[in-house]
């Protein structure tokens, strides 16, 4: 339903910010999210930051599958 990708805030000018998706920069709007600061991670959807996000920790997919099988 909604693609949103995390990015790091590089600079802020009023309600616009330049964010870094990891080698890809874009100016986006901070208009609908409050309290965003430089170096925060935000989720970007259709040119807007929709919320702050913490960096994803490294996780092991296969182990997650094993854990899933355990609860069955």
């Amino acid at each position: 339903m909604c693609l949103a990708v995390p990015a790091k805030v590089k600079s802020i000018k009023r309600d616009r910010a330049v964010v870094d998706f990891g080698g890809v920069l874009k100016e986006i709007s901070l208009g609908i999210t409050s309290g965003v600061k430089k170096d925060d991670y935000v989720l970007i959807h259709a040119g807007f930051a929709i919320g702050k996000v913490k960096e994803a920790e490294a996780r092991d997919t296969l182990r997650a599958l094993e854990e899933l099988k355990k609860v069955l």
Partner: protein
Amino acid sequence: MEEKITLAHGNGGRRMHELIEDLRIQFSNKILNELSDAAELSINKNRISFSTDSYVVKPLFFPGGDIGKLAICGTINDVSMKGARPLFISLAFIIEEGFSLTQFKKIVHSIKQEAKEAGVSVVTGDIKVVEKGAADGIFINTAGIGIINYATSIGGRVKPGDLIVINGTIAEHGMAILNAREKLGFKSNIKSDCRSLNLEVQRCLNVSNKISFMRDLTRGGLAGVLNEIAGGSNIGIEIYEKDIPVRPPVKKLCDILGFDPLYVANEGKFICFVDAKDARRIKKAMGKTSQIIGRVLPSHKKEVFLETKLGAKRLLAMLEEDQLPRIC
């Protein structure tokens, strides 16, 4: 309603292939029926690779190249994939009245430079100027001729067990062009991978006589080209997601816009089908960024599969429609 030509008739996907098939039937002959990007001709016992292509890229200048460079690389690469050494190029312009002379000169300069680097000569050409509105800026058509050397040429046919080697990271040309053309406003170091592959191809031919097939990965991307090969050579193919090289910013831009890099165009990438024995050797000849990405299956003719990072196997279908930036 009268059926019309749509962009899907030229995007490397299924509709384009249907149109090509209609044309093939009309002109049917042994050489054409191979439906390869270059025709292999035999003239007085000389084997010749011959190809033509038209260039209509927008924007004309993009990160990593311009329409001129592309017009040389594209044709050189098509000629080279037959295992040939490209020698001669023809060059024809269709220019819209009012086109900037400065830009024209810039394009000609890149053509000159690229031809020099690749070691090919532009030997004939043509210029047509059309009324304003009858073309969009400038279009270029080139044709190329190369010699296939008996001592080093592509031997045999694609067979089960052959491995597939790629010379580097995918989806760069398509994403660089998209961002520039649609003015999406993403800043990155993503550049078109546009370059001539003839020297790399020669290196491969020098180290192995067990190469069964080579193709450059242009329209339709890796997935599109593999489907063409699977269909054309009546084989099954399997590739491994974890081994397919994509540069992180390219992958990111694909994620942001909802694109699948497997379907995005390249202009400086090719794949080699080679006997498993020689795969390492070819990988080395192709250079540091190369990767063994898959193999030819003994079954599942005309189908291409992707083994995902989770180990699941799914069909990798041919591109149906051009990808568009999406939010879902």
